[in-house]
């Protein structure tokens, strides 16, 4: 099989559309995962037994099932109960919830690392619970978590091709339709691989930097 540069060039506009959707899905999925994870971590610590147990079960449930199955539920089964989501929205929710259960664990560990004395000092100066979270706990807990959170975002990025299963026109899906149409897999799939490498490798280097920078807390 010969490498066909002409085909590569003709494919670029279509693949580019896929790249844009892949990046959108990763960006939106990350925001959702980082937010969902924080709320899950806080809810797991709730003094209310019902809230903390529900959050813990939710985490176990989501982690215990494959992302692909979750995506099928969100996109093909929720419409049966009247919830219609566009492919991208379903995909972002799937990624966000799934990875949210992992970031929740990172947040939990980071929050547990804050010394008890910080909570007590906050109480002694009469901060409310929400002020304590916002001013004292979260600002100290986040920096050491950044490498682990970034790691999950990179992992999520590499899983976005799963969204092609629910018809999201991300990079993988575009590449596959090109391949199917022209009966050539070599160029589109190579380009997909190269694209993921081009993003992953700098991300990993960036991650190492983050780890060095935040390996030690600032005190």
């Amino acid at each position, binding site marked *: 099989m010969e490498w066909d540069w002409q085909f590569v060039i003709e494919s670029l506009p279509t693949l580019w559309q896929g790249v844009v959707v892949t990046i959108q899905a990763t960006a939106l999925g990350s925001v959702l995962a980082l937010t969902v994870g924080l709320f899950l971590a806080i809810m797991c610590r709730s003094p209310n037994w019902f809230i903390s147990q529900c959050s813990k079960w939710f985490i176990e449930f989501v982690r215990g099932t494959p992302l692909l199955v979750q995506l099928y539920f969100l996109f093909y089964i929720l419409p049966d109960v009247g919830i219609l989501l566009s492919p991208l929205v379903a995909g972002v929710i799937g990624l966000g919830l799934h990875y949210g259960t992992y970031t929740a664990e990172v947040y939990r560990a980071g929050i547990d690392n804050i*010394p008890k*004395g*910080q909570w*007590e*000092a906050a*109480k*002694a*100066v*009469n*901060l*409310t*619970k929400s*002020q304590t979270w916002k*001013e*004292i706990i979260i*600002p*100290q807990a986040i920096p050491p978590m950044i490498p682990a959170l970034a790691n999950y975002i990179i992992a999520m990025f590499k899983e976005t091709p799963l969204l092609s299963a629910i018809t999201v026109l991300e990079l993988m899906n575009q590449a596959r339709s090109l391949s199917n149409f022209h009966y050539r897999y070599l160029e589109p799939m190579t380009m997909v691989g190269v694209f993921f490498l081009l993003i992953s490798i700098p991300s990993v280097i960036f991650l190492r930097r983050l780890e060095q920078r935040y390996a030690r*807390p*600032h*005190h």
Partner: protein
Amino acid sequence: MAQPIIDIQSITKRFGDLTVLDNLSFQVQPGEKLALIGPSGSGKTTILRILMTLETLTSGHILIEGEQLWHMEKGGELVDADEAHLHKMREKIGMVFQHFNLFPHKTVLENITLAPRLTLGVPAREAEQRAMELLDMVGLADKKDDKPASLSGGQKQRVAIARALALEPKIMLFDEVTSALDPELVDEVLSVMRQLGEETDMTMLLVTHEMGFARDFADRVLFFDHGHIIESGPPEQIFTNPEEERTQSFLRKVLSAGKRKAEKQAAVL
């Protein structure tokens, strides 16, 4: 006598099977400087922590200026205090910890202004002005923009004192505030406390192993053992003429330990 500012009424505190405070009662008068002394594990810290609402009561009642601390009235009955009630009661009380517990991600100035701004709604400008006055008082005005990590232990503790004072509590609790410090840094903290004692009419409760300081500073000393008050009185009486055998043997032990420590230091020098 005036209404006591703190009225502790038969409180008991258990951790599991361990009874730390056993049906304990005592009162503190407004403006009084009270030193709590006693062997390790006798429950001194626990008393302060209960007053600061960091630890719950097992049973009993505490009145602060005549108002229930851990309870509140609801439909003519006393029920456990809710968070809103505790929040209101905490306004009267401040605490300085053995290990400072400064907020490491905030500057010295922010450590002091944070709570007045958030809990009392003091405007930022005003909070900073007040914080600078307090930093002047503790001799650290030049450190206002530093992070706590760059301070010595003695400086950290002086910032912690300023942080607590910024909320203008009526009652200040000091839990062994010098025992995590290198010996040469103890005096700078004690002198700030001495100044506070002289210049304010705040009620101060301090737990300390610095017997010399307790003696100079306190109006009254309580000697604890196993969650009971063994003896209470003015410092001259407790330190020179204790009535109880347990007080005598405790003082003999700490005074000779203190002497040994001083001799060791002298030998090093």
